[in-house]
């Protein structure tokens, strides 16, 4: 069971500003989903290696070759705010 504090903690971890109602609804829904997911505990996976990939590839690498970058203006074009050649963000308050 996860409580309200857990929900707030997770929301903060993932930068989601949730309202009071949202936090409460989230707590209920997460608990209901987690209850369902807890059925996994019943599966015997003793000695079973986890699968991170469905492909059995290894050592996929590229050579150290420079490729052309994209033009500066096209890489800045989507910026919600910028100052000249730089992306601009509001002040950082250390947590």
């Amino acid at each position, binding site marked *: 069971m996860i409580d309200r504090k857990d929900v707030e903690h997770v929301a903060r971890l993932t930068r989601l500003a949730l309202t009071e109602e949202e936090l409460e609804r989230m707590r209920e829904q997460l608990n209901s989903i987690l209850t369902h997911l807890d059925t996994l505990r019943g599966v015997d996976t003793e000695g079973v290696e986890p699968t991170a990939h469905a492909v059995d590839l290894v050592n996929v690498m590229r050579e150290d070759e420079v490729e052309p970058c994209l033009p500066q203006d096209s890489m800045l074009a989507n910026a919600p705010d910028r100052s000249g*050649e730089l*992306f601009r963000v509001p*002040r950082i308050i250390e947590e």
Partner: protein
Amino acid sequence: MSAPAHYEVVIGLEVHAQLLTRSKMFCGCPTTFGAAPNSQTCPVCQGMPGVLPVVNKKAIELAMRTALAFGCRVNPACRFARKHYYYPDMPKNYQISQYEEPLAEEGRLEIDIDGASRTIGIQRLHLEEDVGKLVHEGTLETAQASLVDFNRSGVPLMETVSKPDLRSPEEAAAYLKAFRAVLVFLGVCDGNMEEGSLRCDANVSLRPRGSTTLGTKVEIKNLNSFRNVQRALEFEVKRQAQALDAGEGIRQETRLWEADRGYTRSMRSKEYAHDYRYFPEPDLVPLRIDSRWVDEIQAALPELPRARRQRFVAQYGLPGYDADVLTQSRALGDYYEAVLREPAPSAGADRPKIVSNWVMSELLRVLPGDDERAIATSPIPPRHLAGLLRLIDDGTISGKIAKDVFQKMFDSREDAATIVGREGLTQVADETALGAIVDSVMAANPKAIDDFKRGKTVAKKSLFGQVMKATGGKANPTLVDRLLEDKLAKIQR
């Protein structure tokens, strides 16, 4: 300043080194420093929706080279993982790094401290991507906004974590120096701390002397020079000692070294800042590093400075000082041995020391440095220096003339024989030619001959000077001396 005697200082260093690849860790953008902001980026290193990383093979090999140089175990299976935290200089808000299966583990680095040698353990070595650069409009505290340049984002970083084996700020600085020297020597990092190619964080704790358990550790960031490593750690050791003495506990936290102000200050302390939610990077497949690959890298590994220094002393009989100087850089040591490998017909056991003298006192005097670039662009290649030494050996020129020839070689990039030939600097060493000169000098100085016959041996000196004068100083002095001796002896008889 050192810690109060009743505490033992325990320090571990985490060093991030930018690898000398041409392109970034996961995309083809160049890694060159100093370009216009955001001019060296692409969708991949800006973390745009849909993009995927592909591993740079050279980065893996440079890290393997370093790992082997530190005697680490290169893991046969390694993989990348995502490390999550939010910061605006990190485009995806996760960093592709390595976690449970790093590239290499369990190595060591020897450092010299107060004339003694210490072995510092290396816990792990792994690869990750760098973040962008954040600048504040004003200072961090007063800025209303911050600005981001992603040029550096995605540059390959090698993180090396030492074991908590360092026992003082001085040792930490010595470790970092030795570490940097190895990386530069291996050609895996340029070691430039001002440009951020090498960055250091430290974990520091204190414990009562004699205790074997570790105290609460504090992480210190922003140690961007050897001097700052030592100053910051000295400050922190003192701060912790005072806190402990006062009966206050040490809080596990991250502190930032403010170099301008000379103190560390608390930065992240909330527990959630350390919940990185690592999981295997699903966009990359694992690496399988077989022994063949390891052997290949091992075989290409250069001899490290320490081993080379010891070999120079043992093999060439060089004094420790000479071996030190000659092994400061890989390029200089290579240069020295290249000179030794050139043919030297009459060389004796003292040749290594003679070559060393020339390299140390002449070559390093004229070159701007002893690094790769200075040696590679030296106007006097090893072959030319060896050629000059041969001219001395076979008596063509004297040691004194050779120094002038050396300067001329440096100025003109020509070899010694060319300069000596053109400028007529050859020492007259032809016995017949010189004999004739001696005969004519003797004939022109009957008084001196008379004096000699009367037992005035100084007369021989005067004749010697006349011969040298007549040859413009180019006569082989030993030969002149012998010829005079022979000819005067005949007169006496």
